[in-house]
């Protein structure tokens, strides 16, 4: 029997905290993005900040860059994680060590990984030193610019480093719950290993893989400190641009920062809805399995 307590009372604290912090913050951002700031004498809401932001080449370049970073990181991470999960599903010498390294990676903060990546792939980093020792280059400047570069290679490398273990662990958990029965049945009916994977295992993994990919995309799109550390100074990633507009000495830039935050939040809401849609079949499958 679970009818004693009204769930509303149990939920009230969490709703108050999230309402008072999260929703209120989003609401204030939305109001200010319409240039409604009575403190500064702005009492007539308008869309000027959005017009300014959307017609600014700097904003569009930043938006494009952030979308590129998120898309490239997500695709690379998803494909590599799929391979890693299929590898780690099998038993071979050293498997446990790799499993441990995957978990360890999850606890390493992004900013530490970003600094490590900087020391690894920058023009005076470890790879550049190896290239020099191998006679491939004679000066740091000859090493390809992988950090602070226009294609944000260093940023993408860091996300791949950090997100492959994340997606892999989700896939491994999914593989564990799917079991090997379906694949074995397909094989006994004459399917090749590739066919069994392509037509049986992969479709069953897909919802989990897509849901995880949405999370990775949202994070790679919205992170601040990683593009600040590894990215180029122009164009900046969108969150970096928004924060710098917000902290601009010119207070008139604040509504534009708010408008950027609203646009970022709208993209976030789209990803949230996509995630909720993808995660639902997963949750339902879990329930039936019981």
């Amino acid at each position, binding site marked *: 029997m679970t009818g004693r307590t009204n*769930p509303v009372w149990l939920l009230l604290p969490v709703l108050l905290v999230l309402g008072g912090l999260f929703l209120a913050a989003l609401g204030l951002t939305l109001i200010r993005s319409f240039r409604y700031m009575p403190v500064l004498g702005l009492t007539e809401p308008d869309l000027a900040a959005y017009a300014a932001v959307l017609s600014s080449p700097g904003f569009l370049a930043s938006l494009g860059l952030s979308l590129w970073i998120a898309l490239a990181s997500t695709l690379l991470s998803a494909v590599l994680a799929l391979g890693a999960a299929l590898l780690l599903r099998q038993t071979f010498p050293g498997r446990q060590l790799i499993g441990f390294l995957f978990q360890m990676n999850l606890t390493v*903060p992004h900013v530490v990984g970003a600094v490590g990546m900087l020391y690894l792939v920058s023009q005076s980093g470890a790879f550049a030193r190896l290239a020099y020792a191998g006679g491939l280059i004679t000066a740091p400047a000859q090493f390809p610019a992988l950090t602070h570069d226009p294609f944000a290679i260093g940023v993408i490398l860091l996300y791949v480093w950090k997100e492959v273990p994340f997606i892999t662990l989700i896939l491994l958990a999914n593989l564990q719950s799917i079991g090997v029965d379906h694949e074995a049945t397909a094989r006994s009916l004459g399917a090749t290993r590739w066919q069994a994977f392509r037509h049986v295992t992969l479709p069953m993994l897909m919802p989990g893989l897509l849901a995880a990919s949405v999370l990775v995309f949202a994070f790679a799109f919205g992170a601040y400190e990683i593009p600040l550390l590894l990215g180029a100074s122009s164009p900046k990633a969108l969150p970096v641009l928004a924060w710098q507009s917000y902290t601009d000495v010119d207070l008139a830039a604040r509504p534009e920062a708010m408008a950027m935050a609203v646009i970022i939040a709208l993209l976030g809401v789209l990803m949230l809805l996509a995630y*909720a849609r993808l995660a639902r079949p997963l949750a339902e499958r879990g329930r039936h399995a019981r």
Partner: protein
Amino acid sequence: MRGDGLRTLAGFALALWLILPLVPLAIWSVAYGWRFPALLPPDLSTQAWAYALSPTSGVLQSLGVTVSIAASATALAALVGVPAGRALGLYRFRGRGLVILLLIAPAILPGIAVALGLHGIFLRLGLTGTVWGVILAHLVPVLPYMTLVMAAVFAGFDTDVEDQARSLGARPAQVFLHVTLPAILPGLMTGALFAFLVSWSQYLLTLSIGGGKVQTLPLVLFTFATSGRNDVTGAVSLIYILPGLLALALIARRLTGRNPALGLQVGR
């Protein structure tokens, strides 16, 4: 077996890739005068560690601040998230889907979308530049993990044992302490680990709400990294990684199980 060899090789490449970015950090922390193009530092030194651990650098102080903030945010999240998890795990009610959506939202929406508005609110409340303000701000990304883990825990919880304790005359507090809490404790530990790590790695929320006055480890690390002190940066990085590894070692086994919270991102 040829297949085994290939797999071990692929596994070895994976392992190498996983530790590769951490290697220069470890070497830098003990390097002295390691200029391009030297492959390895010409001299080793404990200077960076001595500086990082000395009171003048403020690193240990930051470690304390970071641990306190993460622990407080985790405790508050447990206080609010355990009841909410119980409601979501045990009850079917109207609007449940909406509540879950609201709970996942802060974990998916980029921090910058919340940071600006939260800064505006906290400015008015006088909470900017304070540790309490930062703790409250961290609750936003931390709560989803705690609550959703607890929802999954309570979904597998049998309330009959509570009824039995109650029928034997136990008071509500006794039921919770002696029956409910022991049953949900392993799940609570997992939720706490996620919550702690999420707060532990926050950057932008701490920067915006703390306003430079609350110096957590990621902020200190960033300052050293951009000031060209590679050796100190290496040492601080290792200090920053350590507590996460300890936490993982404590609850390592629980991470491999089927855990819905893995569906949300850890460490951000």
